[in-house]
Every structure is written in structure tokens, then in C-alpha cells.
């Protein structure tokens, strides 16, 4: 299938081949799923909504709900205001959400629909019942990527709900509140950052929080609104936290900035806590904000990760790795594999933004001096890089499987989307325990390959 890829790399300006990103609205839809009793709404053609739901369902293997303004030719000429007003009426009367989170599309942005004024009109016309909320984020598909769409909707939640604190910032039980924007990560990851924060004696508000929504248990009943998700009350109380910790700048910075602007809660922008160093930095910030010593339980988890890093060191040392996916994921993973003694040589994201290259450079600090690093890249370019400088391991989303097969390289699925494997939404990649799991996946891939390729006499029981 990838026989066509030429080795010689040439600059392309006009064309994306095998993208390493997708459009903003799907990220907004995913973020809105992490708001309790919220129905995400796509203000555009019917296909957008259908594609996003299918794509998210393929990854999470869960029902994904969203409604659409179902644009017609008329709406594309005269604007989609009446579609949205009608849609809001339909949504509240039929699906009964507490919140509708509207995101725009390339179509509605280009025709210039002004969402806040349409929402105001819908409220005047009685389409929005009292006590119900409609929020929005501007997510044209021709800007950013699914990651920035997630960031925009997370910030939208803050902008619509966060209030200046009127009461004390300290809880009665003495625990300190902290806000955590977890990034475009699995429900399991959101659960794990909450657990770590609680171990640090903090009371976290995780926003958004898709745990309990997109990893909901099978109970024999179909819950249109599963029990998970950050609540409106929690969002109102964001101002009572001592800090907002943004995990992964591209997906989470905007929301943390919004909390700071509205509620004067300081922000801490960190990398996704993937691998040992980034998790150390995350725990370090929590420790400082909580003024609480790291408990033995967390220290033991860290110790186990260090232990495994030592045990498996010889199998990892010097291995060349290609990593692609979302910028926050890739930055953190590049640092982790370098900490494992491996050499990240091709590092690519499809999401635009030069801060990616800069951050990778800072974190690798000369440990992989000739590495190819690129934002706004695509998998065609990555394939060319891999042909020119072959690697021992590829780490990325399911879209890497064609590359892995074409170049016969061991492959670890990591990031979003994963369309051809199961279980990823249940096990975290973040934190020290997430580090253990990632190491197990990396080592399995490398050692399975070693076993596969070993001549009979070197096919050994003990490695």
C-alpha cells in the first residue's frame, strides 16, 4: 500500500498526504463529552457530526452522542441561525441535557454565524429552558487541529461557568483544591491524574473529565448521559483552587489561562505527565501547591518504574525510535524514550505550531542531536524519513500500522486514535504506573521482534 513513497524528501506546500492530525470540531466534541449531562452539538452539515461520532466510537468503542444543526443549501447562503435555534429547541425537549456545548465547523465559520447572539436569541424565544445552559467554542476546521479544538472547548467551559470566588479557597476538611486540565488523553488517564492529585492530599477538579463517560461499564441499560463528567457546579467553583495545572500546553493551556483571567487562579503549564521526568515535574508542582510531602504509595510507584528501567536497560539502549501523534503526547514520549536510553530520531506531529519543535529541542537537550523534528508534518514525510534513516521502533496512532508494515518495524500504538486494538481507554499511560505500562508495551514489541528474527541457536528462553 505504501509502495509509492519516494525516498527523496522534497518540500511540499500544497498538499497533505496521510495526515497526522484531523480537524478541530472532533476535539471539541470529545472535550464536551467530559462535561456531565452535556450534549455536544455540531453547528454544520450532518456529515461532520456523523463522522466525529463514528471516529470517536471506533477509538473508545462506546456510544458517542452529539447532535447536528443539519445545514442545508439554504443555511449555507442565509446563515445557520434558524437551524441552531430550532436545534436547541429539539435538543432540550427530546434529549433533556443540562448543557448543550455548541462547536462550529468550517462551514458555519465561513458563513459567519455569530454563536453567542444566536444563543441569546434562542433563549429569548424560549428554546432554552430555565436552569439549562448552552456554551460554545469556535472551532473552524481550517485552523489548528483536533487538539486545538479540544483546547477551545475546554476553555469554553471555563469562560461560560467559572465564577470569581466569594467564599474561602480552603475546604473545611483542610484539603486544598486544584484544577487539572488533563489534555486530550484517555478516560483512564484523566482518572489517573485525579488519583495522583488525591494522593497528594488535594481535591482536584478535572476538566474536562471523560472518565465514567467513555469508559462506562456495561450495566445492561443504555445511559444516554453516563454518570461521569465534570459538573457545572464544579466548573463554577474553579476560582476556589490554588492553581490550575495544564497538562500538555497545546490541549490544556487555553483553559488554564481562562481560569487565571476570570478567577485570578495562577496557572502551571506542564508537559503531559508521561514517563518519569514529566511525572516528577507534575508531582513536584502538586507537592508545592499542596504543601504536602509525596506519600510512600507514590514514591513506591516511582521506585517500581525506576526498577523496571534498570532491569530492562540493556534491551532499550541506543534503539532508534520514530514517534508521531499529537504534539503534547509526542513531546512527552520523546523525553521518556530518551530517558530510557533510546534515541528518538524522527519526531513529528500534524498539529501546526513551532513551540513543538522548541519544546522537543529543550527536553532532548542534545541527547539526539540529528533528530528530525517537525510540526505540521504528515505520515508521508515520516515514511520518507524512516526510509532515509531506519528505526528500531515506531510509536504512534493506528495510522502508523501501514508504515510499520512497509518498513517492517516493531510498532507500539499510543495516542489517539487507536482503531485496531482494544483496552487502551482502561489503562493509563500517564503517571508512574502509566510509565510501567508503556515500558511493557515497548519491551514486548522489541523482544517479540528479537524472538521472531533470532536464528534457532540464538532463540533463547531467558532474555
Amino acid at each position: 500500500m505504501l509502495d509509492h513513497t519516494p525516498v527523496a524528501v522534497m518540500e511540499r506546500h500544497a498538499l497533505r498526504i496521510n495526515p497526522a492530525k484531523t480537524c478541530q470540531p472532533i476535539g471539541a466534541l470529545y472535550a464536551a463529552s467530559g462535561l456531565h449531562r452535556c450534549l455536544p452539538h455540531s453547528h454544520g452539515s450532518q456529515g461532520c457530526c456523523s463522522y466525529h461520532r463514528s471516529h470517536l466510537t471506533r477509538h473508545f468503542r462506546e456510544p458517542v452522542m452529539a447532535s447536528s444543526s443539519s445545514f442545508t443549501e439554504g443555511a449555507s447562503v442565509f446563515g445557520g441561525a434558524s437551524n441552531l435555534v430550532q436545534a436547541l429547541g429539539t435538543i432540550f425537549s427530546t434529549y433533556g441535557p443540562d448543557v448543550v456545548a455548541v462547536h462550529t465547523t468550517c462551514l458555519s465559520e465561513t458563513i459567519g454565524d455569530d454563536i453567542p447572539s444566536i444563543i441569546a436569541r434562542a433563549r429569548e424565544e424560549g428554546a432554552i429552558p430555565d436552569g439549562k445552559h448552552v456554551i460554545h467554542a469556535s472551532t473552524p476546521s481550517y485552523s489548528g487541529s483536533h487538539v486545538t479544538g479540544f483546547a477551545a472547548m475546554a476553555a469554553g467551559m471555563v469562560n461560560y461557568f467559572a465564577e470569581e470566588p466569594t467564599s474561602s479557597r480552603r475546604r473545611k476538611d483542610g484539603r486544598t483544591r486544584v484544577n487539572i486540565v488533563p489534555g486530550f488523553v484517555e478516560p483512564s488517564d484523566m482518572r489517573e491524574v485525579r488519583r495522583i492529585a488525591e494522593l497528594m492530599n488535594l481535591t482536584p477538579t478535572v476538566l474536562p473529565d471523560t472518565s465514567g463517560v467513555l469508559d462506562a461499564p456495561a450495566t445492561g441499560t443504555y445511559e444516554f448521559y453516563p454518570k461521569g463528567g465534570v459538573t457545572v457546579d464544579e466548573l463554577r467553583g474553579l476560582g476556589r483552587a490554588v492553581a490550575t495545572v495544564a497538562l500538555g500546553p497545546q490541549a490544556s493551556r487555553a483553559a488554564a489561562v481562562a481560569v487565571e483571567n476570570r478567577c485570578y487562579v495562577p496557572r502551571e503549564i506542564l508537559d503531559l505527565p508521561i514517563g518519569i521526568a514529566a511525572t516528577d515535574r507534575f508531582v513536584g508542582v502538586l507537592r508545592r501547591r499542596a504543601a504536602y510531602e509525596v506519600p510512600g504509595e507514590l514514591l513506591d510507584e516511582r521506585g517500581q518504574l525506576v526498577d523496571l528501567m534498570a532491569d530492562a536497560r540493556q534491551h532499550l539502549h541506543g534503539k532508534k525510535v520514530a514517534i508521531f501523534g499529537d504534539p503534547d503526547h509526542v513531546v512527552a514520549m520523546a523525553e521518556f524514550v530518551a530517558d530510557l536510553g533510546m534515541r528518538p530520531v524522527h519526531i513529528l506531529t500534524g498539529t501546526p505550531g513551532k513551540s513543538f519543535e522548541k519544546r522537543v529541542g529543550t527536553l532532548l537537550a542534545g541527547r539526539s542531536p540529528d533528530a528530525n523534528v517537525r510540526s505540521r508534518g504528515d505520515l508521508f514525510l515520516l515514511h520518507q524519513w524512516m526510509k532515509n534513516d531506519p528505526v528500531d521502533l515506531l510509536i504512534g496512532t493506528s495510522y502508523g500500522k501501514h508504515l510499520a508494515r512497509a518498513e517492517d518495524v516493531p510498532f507500539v500504538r499510543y495516542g489517539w486514535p487507536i482503531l485496531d486494538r482494544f483496552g487502551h481507554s482502561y489503562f493509563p499511560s500517564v503517571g508512574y504506573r502509566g510509565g510501567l505500562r508503556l515500558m511493557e508495551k515497548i519491551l514486548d514489541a522489541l523482544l517479540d521482534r528479537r524472538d521472531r528474527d533470532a536464528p534457532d541457536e540464538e532463540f533463547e528462553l531467558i532474555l
Partner: protein
Amino acid sequence: MARILKAREGQVTRSRISVDGAPDLDCDRRSVAGSVSQRACTFCGSRVVLYPIADALHLVHGPVGCAVYTWDIRGALSSGPQLHRLSFSTDLRERHVVFGGEQQLEASLVELIARHRPNAAFVYATCIVGVIGDDVDAVCRAVSGRTGIPVIPVRSEGFRGSKRDGYSAACRALESLVGTAPTDGVTAHSVNLLGDFNLAGEIWIIRDYLERLGVQVVANLTGDGRVADIRRAHGAALNLVQCSGSTVGLAEHLRERYGQPYLRVSYFGFEDMAEALYGVARHFKDPQMMLRAREIVAEGITEAMPVIRAVRPDLEGKRAAIYVGGAFKAVSLVRALRTLGMRTVMVGSQTGTAEDYRTLTALCDPGTVVVDDSNPLELASFLVEEDVDLFVGGVKERPVAYKLGVAFCDHNHERKIALEGFVGMANFAKEVHASVTSPVWQLTPRRRREPSPSPLPGAVR
């Protein structure tokens, strides 16, 4: 009855409840704005139909998303080139929205055609292209002139309508290709296969039957399709049209333009597969061909029957629900499920026509729920109310079924086993049986109360 949107009441009925029969289903209308529809858009319809043409270049002109969501998502297998499985997008950015994307489109086409040497190129217009006013036709004409291959614009802006409108846009694109090459070597007993996308290699099964029948297949439209075949498709004596929704428009056009008759067929289930082969033999008025058709049918059923017999006792009397893209497929499914001893208690589609629904209503047992353009809430309540054992649907329906503890069979893009032909019926039987009798359903509340055919060891009830 399930919670149904007021404005949708005309889109749900029950078969033969009253003596006079139910009124025609109010279908083929736009979804109510704000509903959680399972439907897609014009672009989706066009992409689904054209994408399997394997030696063509498929370039999506628009922001990156539309290209990503249709990248290698169907197992539309090709026996040769794999060019259709790559994702090409002009990845329009804000500056193109302001200044236009025509240059971007032209540069992309020129680069790709030079590198991949495709036999044709399809350029899909997305929503935004229609709004910013790029002259896609002019760019296509210019590039076609420079490169010497057909470069075909597909008017698939998402807001133009539903998936059905996308099918029409795809048919228009195909029409411009048919009739552009000589028909030397096309025999009197020849057909084109329309509306089969070769999921899991299904078109190869059908081609094999036709070859054994003594019929030449000129062009596949579009599963495992090739540009050169499609260009000479007008030479065939007959068009076989499956999946009526997507390509019947093309068949109509070919009949008017070239006098080619067409036959609507389905390859799902014993009855419909057999009828398709008999129909071809009848058309060519060849008694020898009819004899061969009977042989193929007899042989196919004989091979498949042991599987049916083996699974039927476990499936007898089980209740099935169907929600698929096109209603024509639903008709075959109702019959195929009957072959397995199962009863269809709910059937619906995203894009069925009034005629489709009349056929379904007449075919199904009295009281069967018939529904057009449904949504997950409705579907879930039907599954519960009708106490369904098996749901046949697509990607968005699957997790809803599983949450309720209902078995599922994918009859859409993501099926990995061939369901067409006699062998397909055996595969379908195995798939349905595996899903319905899976031990996992014993762990869900609904089924725990019932005696199970194969209880889990140590299960507590």
C-alpha cells in the same frame, strides 16, 4: 412506543397493524435540526461510492478532516493497486478561505498525478469549497488538459443534502467516465456490477458465479474497480444494480444514454442470490445459462446448508432488529434472518425510499416496527421494548447494542467477512450464531434471568 420526536412521528410505523395497512412512511426528508441522527452528508455518499476505484487518485479538496474520516475506513479490497487507500487532502487553511484554494488544488493535482500516474483523478468538493466559490470544474479541466487523464470534479459539498445526494453526485462523476473508451472484446453475454464495493472481497464471489454462468463482467462499479473498465462499461449488455440507493441513478442514466437495461439485485441470502442469477439467465434468454444457474444455486446451497442446519436450533425464534444505511439491504436481511429461523421485530434505514419501506412493511411479520432516520435513543428503546436478541447495524449502533447486552452483527463498512453469495450466507449464519450465543450475554442483567443454552461453569443466577 419509544420516545419519538414529534416531528418524526410520520417516520415510524408498524407493519400491517390495521386492516387498511399503514400509510406510507414519511421518509426521504431532511433530519430535524438538533436530532442525534445516524445519517451522514453528501460528501460521505460520494466518497463511499467512488473510493473503491483503486487505480484512480482521490483528492479531497477542503480542510483536513473530511479526508481523515474517509481514509481507509472500508475494507473495499483491491486485487491490484492500493492507491485509493492513501489519504490526499488540500488541507485548506484560513488564508485559502480568504483568498481561495484553486492554486492549492492545482498544485496538489499536478504533483500527485506526476508521482502516482493514476488513470483518472476524482476531486471531491467539501462544504467550504462550495462557500468560498473555488471553480473546481475549471481547475479539473485545466489539469486534465495538461496531464492527459480524466480529472473529474465531484460536487459533494456536505450541505447539499443527504448521503443520497452524494450518491447522485458520484453517479454524475461516473457518467462522465463511461463511454470514453472503445468496447472491443465485449461479448453479447456481458454485465457491469453496480453498487457492490467489494467489502471483504465479496465482488470476487459474485464475479466467480457470473463467470461460471458464462457471463463476462466488463466493469465493477466500483468495488475493485478500474478506470479502463469503467470507460468501456457502456458496451455491456446488462447492468446488475445492487445497493439501489447508491447507483440506481447511474443505471437509469446508462439506460437512457446507451439503451442498457438494468436489473435490481441483491446478493445477500439464498433467495435473493439465487434470484439474481436466475434473473441474469432469464435476461439473456439462454436455457443453457439457466441450467448452469440452477447448478450454481444447488451447489452453493448444498455447501452452505450444513452450517445453517448446525446453527439454526440455537437461533430459532430469536428476535432481530435491523438498522442499516440503505433499505434495500434491509429487505435481504429480513429474508436471510428468516432462513436462520429468526424473526425481525424492528427494521429501519438512514436513507430508504417510500417504495423500500412499502416492500419492507409487506415483507415483515405483522407488528414489526419500521423506522426511517432513527437516533440512538429511539433505537435503544426499541431494542428493549421488542426484547431483541440480535442487532444488525453499523459502527455507531454497535456500542448501544452492547451496552444493553444485545448481540450484534456488523453489516456495514466494518465487516471483515464476506456476506454475499451462498458462502456469504454461511458466513452470516456463523457470525450471527457466534454473536447471539456468546457467553458474555449471560453476564448482562437482561439475560441472567433466563436459562442459557450453554451456561458458564460456576455461573451464579
